[in-house]
C-alpha cells in the first residue's frame, strides 16, 4: 500500500442544522502517525466535523475515504469497527453502571457464557484496560457515580483505547483533566503516533495544541481556513486565523477595574443542594460575577437555585432587601431574570413566534386589564427588540427557524423588555457564532454601565476571565477560589482550582 496515502481523507463535507450552516465544503486529510489539532472558535464546526467522522451524525453531503477506500459508516458501531473512535466533549458514560460495564458497554457479548454474563471476567478485563492507560487507580468494580469527573473521563479513554482504534478523536477532553490526567492522555496519543496510528485533537488551549500536535487545521464558522505544520505554529497567527481578523481588544471588556459599588443586590447563604455544598456569595450593584468550573461542578444547579427554580436543601437565597427567593414568581418580583443553559428546552418556546416569546414575561405590562391587543404587543416588541438587531423576517417568525445567536437575542429581549435588574445567564454564548457573541458581550457591558448586575455562569474560562468583575470557581460543588479582576488572571491559574 502506498505509504503516502492519507489514513483519512475528508472531502467537501457539508452539514447544516436548520438555517445554520455548521460545515461548508470542508476538506482535510489525516496522515498515518499524525496528531492533527483541530482549532477554531465555538461554533466553528470542529465538533460537528469530528462527530461526522465518528458517525455520531451524518453529513448532508461530502465524502470520506479511509486508506483510500470510501468510508461511509451508518452509525458509531460501524465507525468503531472501522477503527474510528471518539472521546466526547460532553459526558458519555452511564452513572448507574459499574466502571467495567461502562468500559464494555455494547460489547457485553464478549463475556457471555452459556447465556449468562460473566461479570468477574469483565471486571478483570476492564482492570487490564485501565492499567494499560496508566489509570490503574480506578477500580473496575466501582460504580461510576462514585468517581470524580476526571476519572469518569479516563474510563471513557480506556473504553476508546480498548477497541484499538486507528483513529482516535479527542474532543475537548483535556479541560476536564488535571495535569496528571492530561499526561496520561498525551502519553496515549504519543504511543499511538509511534504505532503509526493517528489522532484528531480538539482543544481550546492553544499552548496545549502547540505542544502536542504535529499539524493544525483551522476552521472558522464552518469553513476550512488553513492547515499549518509544526514549524509554522505561532500563537498570534493561529489566533488571527481562528477569529478571522486581528483579535480586537474590545472583544471582551477592555478595562481592568473591578466593581466598586458595595450595595448588595443579591446573596446566597450557605446553600446546599444536590451537588452544591455550602455556597455563599454576594452580588453587588453593577457587577458582573463570573462562575467557572467543570460542567458538573454544580454551577448550573446554582443558577437554578438563584432563580428559585430548585429549592435548596439548606440555606437561603435572598434579594438585596432580604426577601427570600422561593420560586421564580418571587424572583421576578425582585426583577431577577434567568436564561438557562438549555435555552431551547427551558427558556424559549421554540414552536412559538418571536413575539410570543418576548411578550411572555411581560403580559402584566402589555395587557389592559385582562385583554391583550395586537398593537400594544407590537409596540412593546418594537421598543425592546430593535436595539438587539435580531435577524428575522418579522416578529411572527418561529423561534425554531432562527440561529443560536438570534435565539439568544430573543431570550435577552424577553428579559430586557421585562425590565430585569439582575441577570442570571447560564452559558450565555453557548453555541453562538463570534459576531453575535461580541454583541452579547457588548450588551452585558452596557447593562453593567446602567447599574444592572449579572451572574454569568460559563464553561468557557476565557469569557469568564474576560468579562467578570469577580470570578468564583467551583469544584465538586464547593467554592474553591475567588478572584478579583486583574491583568494577571490566566486560564491556567483557574484550571488549578477547577480540578
Amino acid at each position, binding site marked *: 500500500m502506498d505509504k503516502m496515502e492519507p489514513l483519512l481523507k475528508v472531502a467537501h463535507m457539508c452539514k447544516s442544522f436548520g438555517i445554520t450552516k455548521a460545515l461548508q465544503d470542508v476538506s482535510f486529510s489525516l496522515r498515518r502517525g499524525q496528531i492533527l489539532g483541530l482549532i477554531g472558535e465555538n461554533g466553528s464546526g470542529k465538533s460537528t466535523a469530528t462527530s461526522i467522522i465518528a458517525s455520531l451524525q451524518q453529513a448532508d453531503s461530502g465524502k470520506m475515504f479511509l486508506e483510500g477506500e470510501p468510508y461511509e459508516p451508518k452509525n458509531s458501531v460501524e465507525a468503531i469497527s472501522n477503527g474510528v473512535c471518539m472521546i466526547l466533549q460532553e459526558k458519555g458514560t452511564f452513572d448507574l453502571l459499574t466502571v467495567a460495564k461502562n468500559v464494555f458497554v455494547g460489547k457485553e457479548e464478549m463475556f457471555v457464557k452459556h447465556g449468562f454474563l460473566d461479570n468477574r471476567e469483565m471486571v478483570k478485563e476492564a482492570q487490564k484496560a485501565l492499567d494499560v492507560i496508566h489509570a490503574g487507580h480506578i477500580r473496575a468494580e466501582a460504580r461510576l457515580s462514585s468517581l470524580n469527573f476526571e476519572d469518569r473521563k479516563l474510563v471513557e479513554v480506556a473504553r476508546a483505547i480498548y477497541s484499538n482504534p486507528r483513529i482516535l478523536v479527542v474532543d475537548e477532553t483535556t479541560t476536564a483533566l488535571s495535569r496528571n490526567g492530561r499526561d496520561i492522555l498525551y502519553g496515549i496519543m504519543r504511543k499511538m503516533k509511534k504505532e503509526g496510528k493517528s489522532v484528531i485533537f480538539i482543544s481550546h488551549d492553544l499552548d496545549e495544541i502547540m505542544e502536542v500536535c504535529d499539524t493544525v487545521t483551522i476552521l472558522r464558522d464552518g469553513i476550512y481556513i488553513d492547515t499549518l505544520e509544526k514549524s509554522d505554529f505561532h500563537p498570534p497567527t493561529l489566533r488571527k486565523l481562528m477569529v478571522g481578523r486581528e483579535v480586537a481588544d474590545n472583544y471582551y471588556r477592555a478595562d481592568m477595574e473591578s466593581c466598586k459599588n458595595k450595595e448588595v443586590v443579591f446573596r446566597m447563604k450557605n446553600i446546599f443542594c444536590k451537588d452544591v455544598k455550602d455556597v455563599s456569595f454576594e452580588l453587588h450593584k453593577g457587577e458582573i460575577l463570573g462562575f467557572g468550573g467543570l460542567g458538573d461542578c454544580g454551577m448550573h444547579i446554582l443558577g437554578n437555585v438563584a*432563580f428559585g*427554580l430548585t429549592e435548596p436543601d439548606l440555606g437561603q437565597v435572598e434579594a438585596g432587601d432580604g426577601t427570600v427567593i422561593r*420560586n*421564580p*414568581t418571587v*424572583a*421576578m418580583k425582585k426583577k431577577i431574570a*434567568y436564561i*438557562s443553559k438549555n435555552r431551547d*428546552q*427551558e*427558556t*424559549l*418556546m*421554540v*414552536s*412559538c*413566534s418571536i413575539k*410570543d*416569546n418576548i*411578550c*411572555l*414575561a411581560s*403580559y402584566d405590562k402589555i*395587557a389592559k386589564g*385582562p*385583554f*391583550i*391587543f395586537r398593537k400594544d404587543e407590537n409596540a412593546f416588541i418594537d421598543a425592546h427588540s430593535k436595539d438587539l438587531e435580531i435577524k428575522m423576517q418579522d416578529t411572527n417568525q418561529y423561534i*425554531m427557524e432562527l440561529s443560536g445567536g438570534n435565539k439568544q437575542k430573543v431570550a435577552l429581549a*424577553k428579559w430586557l423588555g421585562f425590565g430585569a435588574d439582575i441577570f442570571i445567564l447560564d452559558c450565555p454564548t453557548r453555541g453562538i457564532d463570534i459576531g453575535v457573541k461580541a454583541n452579547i458581550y457588548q450588551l452585558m457591558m452596557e447593562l453593567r454601565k446602567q447599574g444592572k448586575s449579572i451572574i454569568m455562569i460559563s464553561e468557557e474560562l476565557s469569557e469568564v476571565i474576560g468579562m467578570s468583575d469577580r470570578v468564583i470557581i467551583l469544584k465538586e460543588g464547593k467554592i474553591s477560589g475567588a478572584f478579583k479582576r486583574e491583568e494577571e488572571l490566566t486560564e491556567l491559574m483557574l484550571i488549578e482550582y477547577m480540578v
Partner: protein
Amino acid sequence: MSFLKKSNINFRTIFPFLGLIIIVTLFAILTKGKLFSLVSLRSIMNDGIYVLLGTIGFTFLFAMGCMDFSIGYNMGVSCAVACVVANTFHIYAAIPAAILTGLCIGIVNGIVVTKTRIMPMIATMGMMFILQGGVLIILNGSVLQAPLSMTGMYTNPLKIFLIIIFIIGGYVLFEMTVFGRVAKAIGACPEAVRQTGINADKYKVIAYVIMGAIAGLLGFISLARTGSATNSTGVTLMFNVMNAALLGGVPMTGGPTTKFRGAVLGALTISFLSSGMTILRMSAQNQQLVKGIIFLAAIGICFDRKNMKVIK
C-alpha cells in the same frame, strides 16, 4: 424546505374549512336538500349546542396540552343533581345546581392534575369512573323524571343566545386575553413558562373549572330538553367533542397553532355529520362506526408528526 413548510401550514389552516364544506355538500346531495329544511336545521342546533359548547371549553385544555375525559359523565352527574334539586326545591334552582356541580368536579380535576402530577388523561379517566358510579347512586337506578314545567324553560332564543355568547366570549378569552396567551404558552413549552415565573398550575385549574362549569351547564340543558336525567346522559359528549376538536384542526399537543375558530368549525362539522346521518336513517351503531373512522382519519391527517421531534 421552506416551500414545504408553507404548504403544510396552509393545508392545516384550510383543513377544517375543507372538512366542513365537504361534509355539508356531501349530505346536502345525499339527503337531496333535506339537510337545510327547518326541521333538520333545528335538530342540528339542538344536538350541536352540546358539541359546540363542550368543544369551546375543551379548546383551552387542549391548548395547554391537557385533557378531560370526565366531561361526559360530569354532564350526567350535573344533570342528575339538577333533576333532584328541581324536584325537591324549585325548577330554577336547577340551573345553579347543575353549573356548580360541574364546576366543583372541574376544581377537583384541576387540583388532582396539578398537585399529584398524574397525567391529565389518566387523572380525568379516574374521575370518569367515579362519576359513572356517582350517576347511578344519585339516580338510584336508571331514570329520574324532572317536573314537566322544566321543558318550557329551554327556548330557541335562549339556545341562540347561548351559542352567540359562547362563540364571542370564547374567542375573546382565547385570542385576546392573557389567559389565552398563557394557555398556548403552557402547551408550547411548560418549562419555559415555569422559568418565566408564571404559575401554570393556576391557569390549568382555571381551565378545568371552566370546562367543568360548561359540562354542568350542558347537564342542565339536557335536563330541560328531555325532561329527565338518565344514566346515559352525556355519554357521547366526550367522543363528539374530541372528534370536533380534531376535525377543527386543534392540535392535541397544544401550543401556538391552537386556533379558536377550529373549535367552532369542528363542532359544526360534527353536528352536520350527525344530523345528516340521522336524516339518512343510519342506525346509531353505524353512525358511531363512521365517526370512529373519521376520528382516526382526522388524527392521521392533522397530527403534526414531523414537528413533534423538534418540539418535544
